[in-house]
């Protein structure tokens, strides 16, 4: 292959590619690489230093021993393109067909280490992962300085290579879990992984599940504690979260940073979160069940005051609840989309709509507002954003069932949810199991 001509023709369709002629060690060479990935002036300074050293040691430039780069002997098109797509730089001689690649000074294309954006830590380390895979690995290694931390690296995809790193702690990990995960990843090396759903497809998880089979965390400390507990951590290139496998119900309630407070407070936090989940799931269904199907369960005083608050409300309790829940869900969704500068607006408008106007317009009862506000607040008591989403779904199942069958429906719904949770497992490790490093599962 004629390298100079190939790269010239390539430059015509890819204007980011630079071809920079210069004299190095008395030879006329051309540097090639991506402008957007390589800091050229810095790299040239580095290159000059390296060639001077090579010259002083009397080593030819295009030789491995020169220490400048790695020589490539008659490289193919694919090899060349992969090298420059990876952010490496090519040096080739105009006259002879010698060529080599080297790791240049690259541009900084990711943010610095910041505090987490989707999780908050009250007491504990607050640096979070970012998009740089190597930074993320470094962060984990720093939180876990042990030689037992081992990793396997994969590059998946045909057109776009995406790096995936699998970390585990030797001696703590279940060998069978590790084997099944690495087998799954190795089975389809050609598969593109543009998003997490594709990854979960690769790992063989069902598409129609409410519970994702991995827990995501932004905090290196959490990932390290998962590793220490014998779990597997997956890191993806350009993805600022660590995925820990397998997921367990307790991930919803217990976080590593809890360990920084005394045991009694830990326990009360745990109870509070469990209570939060129960309230969030049960309250809307309970309201509908008590108001329309089984009012005899209420105390007479509450029954009368609820009946009073519902006078003139035109819709049945179910429609009323669904109406307000819809507005609430819309508020969440738009709060995510809104720019930070106009974020407070939606809180204000939403507050006015939900708080006062909707009651005065006699569309819903004000008891319902209290119920839904409590349920919404309780929803976010759990750990992890992905967990709050599944809880939001269960609520509707209970709502529908209890609108038809009252309290009986509510309990049947709880049984259905428990049965579903009981069926979920990750590589044979049940979602509801109590995790213990070294225990046998599956």
């Amino acid at each position: 292959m004629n390298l100079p001509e190939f790269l010239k023709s390539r430059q015509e369709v890819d204007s980011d590619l630079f071809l920079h002629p210069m004299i190095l060690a008395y030879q006329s060479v051309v540097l090639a690489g991506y402008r957007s990935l390589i800091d050229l002036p810095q790299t040239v300074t580095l290159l000059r230093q390296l060639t001077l050293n090579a010259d002083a040691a009397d080593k030819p430039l295009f030789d491995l021993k020169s220490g400048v780069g790695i020589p490539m002997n008659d490289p193919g098109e694919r090899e060349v393109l992969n090298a420059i797509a990876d952010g490496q730089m090519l040096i080739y001689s105009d006259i002879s067909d010698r060529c080599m690649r080297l790791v240049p000074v690259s541009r900084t294309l990711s943010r610095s280490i910041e505090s987490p954006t989707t999780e908050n830590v009250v007491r504990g380390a607050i640096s979070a992962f970012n998009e740089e895979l190597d930074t993320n690995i470094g962060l984990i290694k720093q939180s876990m300085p042990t030689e037992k931390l081992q990793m396997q690296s994969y590059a998946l995809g045909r057109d776009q290579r995406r790096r995936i790193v699998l970390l585990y702690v030797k001696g703590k990990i279940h060998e069978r879990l590790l084997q099944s995960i690495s087998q799954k990843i190795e089975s389809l090396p050609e598969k593109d992984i543009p998003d997490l759903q594709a990854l979960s497809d690769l790992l063989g998880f069902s598409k129609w599940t409410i519970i994702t089979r991995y827990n995501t965390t932004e905090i290196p400390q959490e990932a390290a504690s998962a590793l220490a507990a014998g779990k597997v951590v997956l890191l993806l290139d350009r993805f600022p979260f660590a995925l820990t496998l397998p997921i367990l119900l307790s991930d919803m309630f217990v976080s590593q940073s809890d360990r920084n407070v005394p045991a009694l407070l830990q326990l009360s936090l745990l109870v509070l979160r469990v209570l939060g989940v129960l309230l969030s799931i049960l309250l809307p269904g309970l309201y509908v069940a008590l108001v329309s199907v089984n009012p005899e369960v209420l105390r007479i005083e509450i029954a009368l005051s609820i009946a009073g608050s519902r006078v003139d409300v035109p819709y049945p309790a179910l429609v009323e609840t669904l109406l307000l829940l819809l507005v609430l869900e819309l508020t969440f969704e738009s709060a995510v989309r809104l720019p930070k500068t106009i974020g407070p607006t939606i809180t204000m408008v939403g507050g006015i709509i939900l708080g006062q106007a909707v009651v005065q317009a006699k569309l819903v009862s004000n008891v319902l507002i209290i119920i839904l506000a409590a349920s919404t607040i309780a929803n976010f008591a759990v750990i992890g954003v992905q967990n709050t989403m599944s809880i939001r779904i269960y609520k509707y199942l209970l709502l529908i069932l209890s609108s038809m069958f009252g309290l009986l429906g509510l309990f049947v719904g709880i049984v259905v949810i428990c049965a579903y949770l009981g069926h979920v497992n990750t590589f044979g490790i049940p979602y509801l199991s109590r995790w213990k490093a070294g225990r046998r599962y599956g």
Partner: protein
Amino acid sequence: MRKCRLLRMALFPLMFAATMALSGCWDIKDINHRSLPIVMGVKQTGQKYKVLLLIPEVSRSEMNIKIISESGITINAILDEINKSLESKLDLLHLKVIIFERPVAEMGLAQSIESFMRSRDIPNKTFAAISDGTLEPLFDKLGASSQGGGTQLYNFFEKNAGWSPEVVQTRIWEVYRSIDSYTRDVAIPSIKPGRTTTIESTGAAVIKNGRMVGSIDSEESLLYNLFKGIGTQGKIEVMDRATVKIVADRLTLSSTLREDQATINAQLNLKVTVLETVGDPSNVEIKQEIDEQLSSRFDTMLRAAQAKEADILGMGQFFRNKLSREELQHWRSKYYPSMKIKFKVHVIIQDEGQLKIR
């Protein structure tokens, strides 16, 4: 595999549709479309019953009371008639108190109580009460002085609200039990409209087999509650030489049956606080006075009950393991009237007030 998946996908909408179609959820009435009566009054005029219902009328800002009455042959027929003319559905599941007029109780409660138990519309834990006078003035008083949606009468009997140890609490399942039981009768509290308060307690009616046979006064109701195990804490006993407050009580009972002579040994342990003294009584004198007062009151009550053959204290329960079923049938007529009871009161003066007693 493919077929199985298709089947499952078809099954899900089918299940969903079936649940929707078969649930019957369109018959459900919301709470604001139900009338929730709190008090029901039952009186008898000739062969007909008359039922009065106290129904709170709710709106966003205030709560009013309406009193609805109707007469008919049976109580259920009357309720049906009321339901027909109400703008919302009559829901008796929140009924708290049923008041019978005294003549109804004297004629016998069996028919109405059995119909309440059978219909299941009315909770079994509803309180039963007997009105000394006619019902209408009582209901007018309840309606006129109601601020909390007519719950006063309920609060009057409710232990965590206005209940006091001299008031008997009897629920309709207990009345139902006494109708068929060989060994246990029941007392139903009797009330009348108060002069300054809404309701006034006038003791309790003694019910034997669902029929009122006598009455006991408030002081005797306290002993009834004591034997029922409800407790008498907070009750103030006034005697000739001292006034004491009961702070704790414990009653132990044992029974013996020898040659058809039933005997009960009862030991009542009381802890009291001295509130007031007249003159300078000693501890021993106060204790003795309490003992005498309670024992004599108890004897009077028991003798009256024995004369009526109404076992309101449920003493027969202690002989269930000593008599055969055939003999138990005759408990009220054969054994109970001649039953002896040794009632001992043991008093501990827990606190002499802030002052010393010599």
